[in-house]
């Protein structure tokens, strides 16, 4: 056992971090939130080039061979840098289409996956639940929807979508896809593929949440060291110290759950990782807001880009309550 990133994995993480640091992601998020996906699409292409979207696809589909640990490492970086867009959905679509292909239905993958892997095509996905909203339907090239049909689930290419609804995170642009559209797959095979997609989505979301939690903590630690009140840095107050210590505790115990889930891909491990990482991100956001005070409550401080991500990410693709229920149902 060596439950630590390898040198190659650390190099991969560092190169992604460098790419994202050079990309001024805060302004990318602000554009995306304002309805201008241009800078986001450009960044998307660079991430595809770095291989980020090929990590859930087998080599037979021109992917990098299904690398869940690398995907977790990559999505943690995406979370640390607040990258916007249907990131989790892209991992889910890749897993779904690859699963279909492996199981004998290669047509949808052949048609849609190449664009996803190269970043030329931005995809999103809605599955039953969550009120029927789909993330970034407006900015995506391909909107896939799984719905219950007469004889089981059906995967369709949505013909359009309704208006964009405001989210707690303005970078999340949610809309209801229009009904109908071309049927791409159906039946028990699809049901299995959707299960696989949900597993990868949870892994991606959990990893992203850990990155969000870490960045909120990092920014808050930096702030409380320099912000003074009553003549001293507020980071010297024990109440501030202890709240940040508790935040670190939550993050440090969520992270191994995410890597562990990447290694086993067991549903209970994935649910545990999603629940713990989501709660850690949310706790980190509450601490960050409280310790920044009023300035943290403004959208103009870049902190807000992470603050607003935490709660929706916690609840997307399985709320903590749903994940907990599944863990107990699956417990031997």
């Amino acid at each position, binding site marked *: 056992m060596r439950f630590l990133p390898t040198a190659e994995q650390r190099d991969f993480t560092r190169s992604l971090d460098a790419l994202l640091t050079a990309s001024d992601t805060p302004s990318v998020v602000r554009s995306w939130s304002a309805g201008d996906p241009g800078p986001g699409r450009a960044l998307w292409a660079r991430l595809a080039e770095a291989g980020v979207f090929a990590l859930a696809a087998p080599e037979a589909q021109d992917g990098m061979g299904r690398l869940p640990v690398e995907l977790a490492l990559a999505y943690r970086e995406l979370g640390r840098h607040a990258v916007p867009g249907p990131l989790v959905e892209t991992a889910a679509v890749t897993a779904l289409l690859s699963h279909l292909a492996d199981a004998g239905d290669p047509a949808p993958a052949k048609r849609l996956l190449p664009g996803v892997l190269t970043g030329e095509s931005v995809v999103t996905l809605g599955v039953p*639940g*969550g*009120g029927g*909203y789909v993330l970034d339907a407006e900015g995506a090239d391909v909107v896939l929807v799984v719905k219950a049909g007469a004889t089981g689930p059906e995967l369709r290419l949505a013909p359009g979508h309704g208006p964009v*609804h*405001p*989210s*707690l*995170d*303005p970078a*999340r642009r*949610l809309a209801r896809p229009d009904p109908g559209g071309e049927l791409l797959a159906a039946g028990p095979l699809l049901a299995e593929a959707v299960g696989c997609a949900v597993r990868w989505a949870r892994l991606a979301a959990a990893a992203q949440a850990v990155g969000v939690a870490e960045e909120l903590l990092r920014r808050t630690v930096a702030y409380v060291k320099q912000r003074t*009140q*009553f003549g001293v840095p507020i980071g*010297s*107050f*024990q*109440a*501030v110290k202890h709240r940040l210590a508790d935040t670190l505790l939550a993050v440090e115990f969520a992270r191994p759950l995410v890597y562990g889930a990447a290694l086993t891909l067991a549903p209970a491990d994935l649910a545990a990782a999603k629940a713990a990482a989501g709660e850690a991100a949310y706790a980190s956001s509450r601490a960050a*807001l*409280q310790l920044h*005070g*009023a300035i*943290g*409550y*403004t*959208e*103009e401080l870049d902190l*807000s880009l992470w*603050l*607003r991500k935490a*709660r*929706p990410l916690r*609840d*997307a693709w399985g*709320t903590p*309550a*749903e994940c*907990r*229920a599944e863990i107990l149902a699956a417990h031997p």
Partner: protein
Amino acid sequence: MDLDHTAEEDAFRAEAREWLAAHVPDAPLPSLETAEGFAAHREWEAELYAGRWSAVSWPERFGGRGADIFRWLAFEEEYWAAGAPGRVSQNGISLLAPTLFDHGSEEQRARILPEMARGAVVWAQAWSEPEAGSDLASLRSRAVRTDGGWLLTGQKTWSSRAAFADRAFGIFRTDPVAPRPHQGLTYLMFDLRAPGVTVRPIGRLDGRPAFAELFLDEVFVPDEDVIGEPGQGWRIAMSTTGDERGLTLRSPGRFLAAADRLVRLWRERGEDRGARDRVADAVIGARAYQLFTYAGASRFAAGGEMGAESSLNKLFWSEYDIELHETALELLGAEAELTDLAGGWGEGYIFALAGPIYAGTNEIQRDIVAERLLGLPKGRR
């Protein structure tokens, strides 16, 4: 010990309930933090004022009903139970008006209060400065004596409502060589549209301009807009922040109504037992806050004063409000992020998040509780 109402109190409550049932708009008004919503809320204040419900605890000559604190609490219960809109005049009515009653002149009260109560003049607060958050004694904006008044120069921030409001109140340094930092401060009112004032709205987390920065460059304030004596601003402001954190900032009626709405949401969502305890805690907490407030009002009516207990009050409602909204989001599950969802839980949640920060952070409040109510040693934090 009793919780009895007099026949007059019951009649007052019934009259309020009847008026509200006839006048509260059927659909919620647009958000207070938009130009459109601000205008709609001003109109609502005018309607309230026409019915003499805008400031029930004021004397009749200023448009009130001379209601004592128990009637005010009863009115608030009815107001929020009726689903009536948020109060755009809240800053003026709960922060400036008590100061005018205690420290203003009769001329100021007659000139200012009725216009405030009918929403014609909406007031913003101008307390904080960029380097003075929890530490108000380190204020730097100054007022310099000039012919017939003062010239204000400096910067204020976190000025709630200032994006759309008409006037503002705050304290300014009038004696820069005073021996201690909280001496030499003066309490002033000024016009947000006066020459020299620049209002820069600040977007809160959802982007709406819930507050603003104020840049002041030799803004003229006539002597008639100084409250109390020059140099006494700190003492006067402290009595206002006492009120701000005390009985009046959040009425129990507001949370009783919110807890009822939460129970309805819980039932609509199938009575999920995973959230049951938290829903029940919202009901328990609202009742606790109501009874705590009745006890405080009873002490107040018996001649007592609000002291450091106001810090307990502020800690309670600000934490309560967040827990209540988090529970609602929990019940809404993945849909919770949609801020346009019926019920307004999303916007309420964003508003609640500010509670532990403003009007003295909860960290400061806990220090006050520990030092003044429990007698623990000061000094180290």
